[in-house]
Every structure is written in structure tokens, then in C-alpha cells.
């Protein structure tokens, strides 16, 4: 007996448009509430502990009175995913005579149903024209005269997925003749397609008569979709196309094959010609959302929902991998029907952060009957000041990277990596069904390509107190509340700053603090963030890295959106792999991938770096000789010589687990560092990372491979600075064990009290 779960269980959801706000500043909140719930209550709460595990301290929050606290009338707000280019209506786009519309395309789901390529089409009026993919996966011209007559003329030859094509359709106004054209363009490197396959270089052309002429419509020109309807001042787009699109052109005459190819490289005498590479400058894509028309008609447009730019085009030869060096070969944009850069809801209320509100982790708590959601945000200290000796550096980039991840339901083999079947909670079920809320950087788009952008402007159901990841442990945002709670229990006054603040303000931000403490998994780092931490350490800063797999992926911010990040996955331990030639970030022009592969292994900065991951069970550390040396023993004051460190905890029953870092001089771990303790007893699910070995070889599991361990490390830096690293994501999950009286808590407290003091650090 079984029944279907047909819809997600969350009836109220919200978001705010950035994670960080200062006293006196405002923060907008957006709420969608199911109509049957009527009204909802909004309250501001300070979040303290969010892990509901029955073995731990349980949920802790404190309500804060503010002007926005109160009841609000609920309303449902819609989210429309799918990226496209929109060019506003313009008289030049109304084609009363003959015309040709053409583009180069690399379709990734040609069989999914009708998709717009270049359209000036109104679904409501059934009027206009459009070069589309039809229901059979063939190129087609669609014409509608607005009086109910529609013609759709297809090539009859289905396109092959991930093959480049020159596609075109012409309409001869004098004869009513329609010509539809498609030509496979298989280069040596431009696709995962053999030049010897039977369809390579296949040219198809069909000609038909029609008595339907394109009727006038005020709908905009849309690329990678078509205009469905208007909602207020917004165009709602349907018919989303998956795949790459390059060099679309619109001409006021009928073209033959030579005429089509002539316009690919030299778009003269055209109605509209859009070259997406025009925005590529020496430091990346200059205006990420801008699409420019070179025809002289001023038909400039904009991308919506963040399609991927700096993508290889039909003419990519495989010789050049840096798109800023060869913009001409990177003229494609890759569109996805599930892209989302902003949910674009209407604002429900605006919080003005009260002056004097203590820096910390806060949320709006939304409640309607038994339904609930939390929208977290960070209150920073007033600009240019510190209000504590210690800063917690909230790894908001890493929260964004994992935001709304679907690994538990989409990754078919994930139970191998976590040593059990996934465990889904309400948020997991909701985001499984409600795909319109967008993806994480761990997901694949509907066409199988990796997701490389993530933004804060949407409900982020994994960035929630009470949420436990489908892998079976709290993770990222909620895991870091273990640490926030411990600060409070131990009486540490702490300011909170975010990744974005560090990126913007650099070392000046950190230098206000005697000690800076990370979260459990600060994995996604920009170059300016690394520079700031290194400069802090070189000038006497004291840094506690209480996590695992930190400072790993090269991350960039969208110059047009400070809360949208990009990565390109390659040559690391990764859920997907970027296509050849697409390893460089569109936002910044720099090489993506691992910082290690750019000469900046985390070992050089924090003494340890990623060695293994495995999400089944965690283990403990054993003390090493350096923990008894004069310069290292202070860390273990109050801890017995033979005690196992952290053979307990809320994250897999141990302090060493989930993802581990090791001390490795070969990658730059400082030679003077104290190697205080190492973990042992890991399973064969805890596997050495793939970037760590060259050729294939057995014995990569923690049950056989001695490299697979978390190392606890302390070292000093110039001017009385220091670093303490735990090398394990699970560390902070052990802090609350036995009413916070345990050796993980003791060690962390010994170090933080010393780091935050004016006392010199032991050498």
C-alpha cells in the first residue's frame, strides 16, 4: 500500500535580498503565504541553537521587539524560473515584408517539447513570428496572424542533442514561401560528438507555402523562449529553451546558405544582430545582463534569470581556454529552463535594524497556524567599528553554494557516499517538488549541465534553523549555530561578519578583532577574501578555522549583484564537471576550480587542507607528541594525556568526520606548526579526495589509507599572530556534549580565550 506525496508541505515561505545588514539600515522581506492560511505573524528572533537532535541542547531563540513584528495579510507569490533574453518592443521588430531569422544553437533537450529560439510572439494574441524548436525536436518557423490562424513549419529532421547547428527560417512576403534550414556544424572540439557520426555536416532544408502572414504584436522579442502574457509591467515567458544560443540575426530579406553564413561573421544590413561576446572584457563579462545589438537599430536587450555567459561557441577550436583571450570563440550564452537569479516577489515589509541591536544571527520567524518558516540574516556591528574582541566569519558563500541542494533526491548514487539512505525533512520534500525555487551549485540543470550560479534573492530552504541535511546531519548554516550557541554558553561576546563583508572591506575589517573564528565548512572563497585573511595573519591576527574543507573553490561575485556567486567545477572533488574550455569565471575572468590548483592550497594559510570526505559516521582524535611540547601543551590544559578527543558529538557521533583536512608539508603546511592530534578509525566511506592522487590505485578509504585523517594544528604567525585549525566539519557538533563540559569544548575554549586576550601566544 502506498500513496503519493503530490505537493510540498511548506505553506509559508520567505526571503530577504541579502544576508548582512547594519544597525540603521533597512532590509526588505518577501513572503508567500498560502491563501487558506489568511494572515501570518512575523517576529524578529535572535537565533542561538537550531539543531533539534534530541541528544543536544535543543532549539533556542530569543524574540526581539521591532517595529515590523506583527500580523500581516498573507498572499501567494509566484516564482518564474527559466532564463532568456528580452528585447523590448520596437517598430523595427515588426516585419511586414520578407525576412530571415537565424542563429547558431547547441540544443541540450531538443525533445522536451516546443522551445523558443528567437521569437516575437504573443501567446495571448497568437500573433507574430518565431524561430522555434517544435514538438518533434526540429527547427520550425511559427507564424500567427492574430486572427486565430497559426502556421508551424518544421524541418522534419530532429536535432541531435549537444550538436551545434546553424538554424534559420525565411518568409517571402511576396510568394508566401517559407524556408526552414538547419545545418550541423561539428568541429573537432565544439561538442561531445564525433565528426564521423552519420549526422555530422547534415544539411536539411524544407520549403512550404503558407497563407498565414505574421500579425503585429506588441510582445517583446525573446531569445530562448516566447512571451506568454503580461503580469503588471512584467512579461511572463514560456517555451524556455535549454542549450546554447549564439549570434542571432534578423534580416529583412530571404537568405540562402551563403547569405546565412555571411551574416555569422559580418552582420551587415540587418534588422538586428546580437553578439554576446561583445560584453567580454579583459576582466570578464563586463555587464553580465547586457545584450547589445550591432545593427544600428538600438535593439539592445537584457538577460533575465542569469543564463550562463562566457560559454564556448560553435567555432571553439580547443586551443584557447581563456575566454578573455579569444572572445570571438566564446560568443554563446547557455540558457536553462530552471535558471533563477531572483524570485522577484513583491516586498511585504521592511525592517529598519534598530540602533544598538547587538551584532549576531537573527531571523524573521513567520508563523501561520502550524506552518512556519525562518528567514535568517546577520546584523553586523556599525560600519567601521568592532563591538567585540572576537569576530565570527559566517561563511555565507558556502551557504549559498549549498542553497536548496537536491543531492538527496537527484544524485542517484548518493547513498554510497553517505553510507545510508537519505533522510528527508519538510524542506527537502518542498524543494524536491517546488523546483522553481532554484538550484544549488551541487545540482544539475534539467539538461544535465552543472549549476554554476547561486543567488540570495529566493527562499533558501537549506539556510534555516531546525533544518537537517538529507545526508543525515545538520550542515552549514544550522551546523554553525552549534558554535553560536557555544559562544553564548561560554560567555564570549562575538561580532558577526559575512564573506561578502570580508570581500568588500578586506584586512581592515579583520584587523579590528583580536581573534577571528570561522564556521564549520567555509569552502567557497574569493581571491580578495584569501588576501584579507593572509594579510590579517601576517600582521598579528589570530585565526581559528573550526571546520573542514575550507578555502577550496575559487568563487566570484557578480559585478551587478553582490549576492550572487559563481564557480566552475573542474579538477577537484565535485558533483559535476565543467565542459572543456569553460573553466574560467564569467564574473571575473579568473580561472575557476580549486585554489590548490592556482598555487594557493589551504595548507599554506591555515596549516591543513582537504583530504577526505564521507558522511556515514565520525570518529575521534588521538593526541600526538606536539600536544605535550611546551609550545603546544597549553591547548590541552585540563585534558588527560590518554583521552580520546571528541569520541562523541551531534555530527555522526564524533568530532572528526564528514569532511577532513590534513597537515601536509608538501602542499605548504608550515614546518613550525604543532601537529597536536590526528583522527583515526575512519571507514571505507571516508575516501581520499580525487585531486590528491595521480594514477588510479586501490586503498583510498579511511580503513586502509593513513592519509585519511583530520589533523589538529596550531602555529604562530608574525607579530604574535596565530592559527588554530581542527580539520573537521564535525568538530563544532561536539561542543555541547555533556552540558558543554568535554574535551572538544575545553580545547576550543583554551585556544579562544588565549587568542582573544592581549597575552602573547606560546611559540
Amino acid at each position, binding site marked *: 500500500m502506498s500513496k503519493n*506525496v503530490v505537493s510540498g508541505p511548506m505553506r509559508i515561505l520567505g526571503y530577504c535580498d541579502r544576508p548582512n545588514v547594519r544597525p540603521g539600515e533597512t532590509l526588505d522581506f518577501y513572503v508567500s503565504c498560502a491563501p487558506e492560511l489568511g494572515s501570518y505573524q512575523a517576529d524578529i528572533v535572535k537565533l542561538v541553537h537550531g539543531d533539534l537532535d534530541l541528544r543536544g541542547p535543543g532549539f533556542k531563540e530569543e524574540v526581539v521587539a521591532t517595529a515590523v513584528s506583527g500580523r500581516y495579510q498573507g498572499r501567494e507569490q509566484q516564482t518564474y524560473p527559466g532564463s532568456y533574453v528580452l528585447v523590448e518592443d520596437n517598430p523595427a521588430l515588426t516585419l511586414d515584408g520578407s525576412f530571415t531569422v537565424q542563429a547558431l544553437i547547441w540544443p541540450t533537450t531538443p525533445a522536451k517539447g516546443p522551445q523558443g529560439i528567437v521569437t516575437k510572439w504573443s501567446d495571448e494574441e497568437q500573433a507574430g513570428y518565431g524561430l522555434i524548436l517544435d514538438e518533434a525536436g526540429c527547427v520550425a518557423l511559427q507564424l500567427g496572424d492574430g486572427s486565430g490562424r497559426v502556421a508551424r513549419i518544421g524541418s522534419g529532421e530532429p536535432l541531435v542533442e549537444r550538436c551545434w547547428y546553424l538554424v534559420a527560417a525565411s518568409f517571402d512576403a511576396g510568394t508566401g514561401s517559407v524556408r526552414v534550414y538547419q545545418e550541423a556544424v561539428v568541429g573537432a572540439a565544439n561538442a561531445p560528438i564525433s565528426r564521423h557520426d552519420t549526422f555530422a555536416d547534415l544539411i536539411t532544408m524544407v520549403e512550404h507555402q503558407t497563407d498565414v502572414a505574421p500579425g503585429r504584436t506588441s510582445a517583446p522579442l525573446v531569445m530562448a523562449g516566447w512571451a506568454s502574457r503580461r503580469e503588471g509591467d512584467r512579461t511572463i515567458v514560456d517555451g524556455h529553451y535549454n542549450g546554447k544560443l549564439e549570434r542571432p540575426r534578423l534580416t529583412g530579406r530571404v537568405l540562402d546558405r551563403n547569405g546565412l553564413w555571411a551574416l555569422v561573421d559580418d552582420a551587415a544590413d540587418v534588422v538586428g544582430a546580437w553578439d554576446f561576446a561583445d560584453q567580454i572584457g579583459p576582466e570578464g563579462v563586463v555587464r553580465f545582463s547586457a545584450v547589445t545589438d550591432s545593427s544600428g537599430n538600438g535593439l539592445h536587450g537584457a538577460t533575465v534569470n542569469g543564463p550562463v555567459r562566457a560559454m564556448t561557441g560553435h567555432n571553439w577550436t580547443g586551443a584557447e581556454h581563456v575566454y578573455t583571450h579569444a572572445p570571438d570563440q566564446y560568443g554563446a550564452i547557455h540558457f536553462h529552463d530552471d535558471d533563477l537569479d531572483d524570485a522577484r516577489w513583491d516586498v511585504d515589509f521592511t525592517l529598519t535594524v534598530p540602533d544598538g541591536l547587538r551584532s549576531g544571527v537573527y531571523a524573521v520567524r513567520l508563523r501561520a497556524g502550524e506552518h512556519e518558516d525562518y528567514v535568517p540574516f546577520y546584523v553586523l556591528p556599525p560600519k567601521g567599528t568592532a563591538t567585540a574582541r572576537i569576530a565570527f566569519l559566517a561563511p555565507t558563500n558556502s551557504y549559498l553554494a549549498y542553497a536548496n541542494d537536491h543531492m538527496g533526491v537527484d544524485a542517484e*548514487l548518493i547513498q554510497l557516499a553517505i553510507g545510508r*539512505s537519505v533522510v528527508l525533512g519538510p524542506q527537502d520534500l518542498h524543494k524536491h517538488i517546488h*523546483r522553481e525555487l532554484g538550484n544549488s551549485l551541487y545540482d544539475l540543470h534539467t539538461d544535465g549541465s552543472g549549476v554554476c550560479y547561486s543567488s540570495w534573492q529566493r527562499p533558501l530552504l537549506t539556510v534555516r534553523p531546525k533544518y537537517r541535511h538529507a545526508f543525515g546531519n545538520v550542515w552549514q548554516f544550522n551546523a554553525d549555530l552549534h558554535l553560536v550557541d557555544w559562544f553564548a554558553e561560554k560567555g564570549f561576546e562575538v561580532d558577526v561578519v559575512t564573506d561578502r563583508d570580508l570581500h568588500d572591506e578586506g584586512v581592515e575589517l579583520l584587523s579590528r578583532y583580536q581573534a577571528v573564528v570561522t564556521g564549520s565548512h567555509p569552502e567557497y572563497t574569493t581571491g580578495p577574501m584569501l588576501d584579507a585573511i593572509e594579510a590579517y595573519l601576517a600582521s598579528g591576527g589570530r585565526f581559528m578555522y573550526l571546520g573542514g574543507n575550507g578555502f577550496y573553490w575559487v568563487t566570484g561575485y557578480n559585478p551587478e549583484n553582490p549576492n550572487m556567486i559563481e564557480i566552475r567545477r573542474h579538477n577537484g572533488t565535485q558533483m559535476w564537471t565543467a565542459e572543456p574550455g569553460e573553466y574560467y569565471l564569467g564574473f571575473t575572468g579568473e580561472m575557476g576550480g580549486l585554489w590548490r590548483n592556482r598555487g594557493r592550497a589551504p595548507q599554506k594559510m591555515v596549516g591543513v587542507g582537504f583530504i577526505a570526505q564521507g558522511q556515514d559516521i565520525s570518529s575521534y582524535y588521538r593526541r600526538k607528541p606536539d600536544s605535550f611540547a611546551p609550545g603546544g601543551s597549553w591547548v590541552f590544559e585540563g585534558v588527560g594525556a590518554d583521552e580520546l578527543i571528541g569520541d562523541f558529538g551531534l555530527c555522526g557521533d564524533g568530532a572528526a568526520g564528514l569532511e577532513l583536512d590534513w597537515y601536509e608539508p608538501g602542499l605548504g603546511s608550515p614546518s613550525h606548526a604543532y601537529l597536536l592530534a590526528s583522527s583515526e578509525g575512519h571507514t571505507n566511506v571516508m575516501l581520499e579526495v580525487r585531486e590528491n592522487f595521480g594514477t588510479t590505485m586501490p586503498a583510498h578509504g579511511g580503513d586502509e589509507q593513513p592519509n585519511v585523517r583530520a589533523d589538529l594544528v596550531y602555529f604562530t604567525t608574525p607579530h604574535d599572530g596565530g592559527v588554530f585549525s581542527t580539520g573537521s566539519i564535525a568538530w563544532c557538533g561536539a561542543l555541547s556534549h555533556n552540558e558543554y563540559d568535554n574535551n572538544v569544548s575545553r580545547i576550543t575554549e583554551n585556544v579562544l580565550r588565549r587568542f582573544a586576550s592581549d597575552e602573547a601566544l606560546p611559540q
Partner: protein
Amino acid sequence: MSGGTDKAVQAGREVDRHIFTQQVRPTITPETIAEHRANPFGAGHSPGLEILLRYLRRNPVPGEPRYVLLETKPYQEWVIARHPGGKAAPLAVTEARFTSQAEAQHAIFLARLRDLGDPEVTRIVDAAAN
């Protein structure tokens, strides 16, 4: 997707049949099942149980859905659901409620063994379950 995909998938299935016969089938015993019931997660598994778990966790039977747990009360109650695959695909929820996640994970282990469709394996599982 190239038209060669079906051939590649079939070749893989035939190799997997060989792996099952040679490596996996001998591990399916009452003792292995009892060992999993006592310790469904983590360290200390016998080599045979490890081989069997890794085989079952890679969804070896074409067309069979994956198993997931739904948590119906935080940290207290779970049900098993079958996931047919695909984004937003409805999950088929089964009725039995478990108050121990270990018991639920073991129930999935038994269900995967039954899904192999081998009468002799099913007989071993039924005997062990009773």
C-alpha cells in the same frame, strides 16, 4: 544523447551480472543479514557485508526505484518512501512507521535484497526477517 547509449548500458548490465554472480551473491547469507540488523551504519562491517552494501547502494536493478526515508517527527519517527527518479517525481510513501532510524535503514536493506528478484535470495531474506 548518442544512439549508442543503449548498447553501452546493456554491456554494463552484463558485466554487472558477472560481478553479482562472482562477488556479491556469495555474501547474501543469514549471517550477513543479522550483522546488518545489529549494525546498519558505520565501522566494523565484515568484508562480505561491505561488498553487499556497496552493490545494493548503487541501485543495481534496472527500473527499481531508490529508497529514501521521510522524517515524520524530528529525530523520532521515519517512514520509507520509494523514489522513482526524476526531478519533482512524486515519492511513493509506504505505511510502516519506524521509531528507530537503524530499523528503518535495515528494512530498506531487506527490501533491496528482495528487489533482486532471485527466489533463493528472497527465501533467505524471508527466513531472516522471521
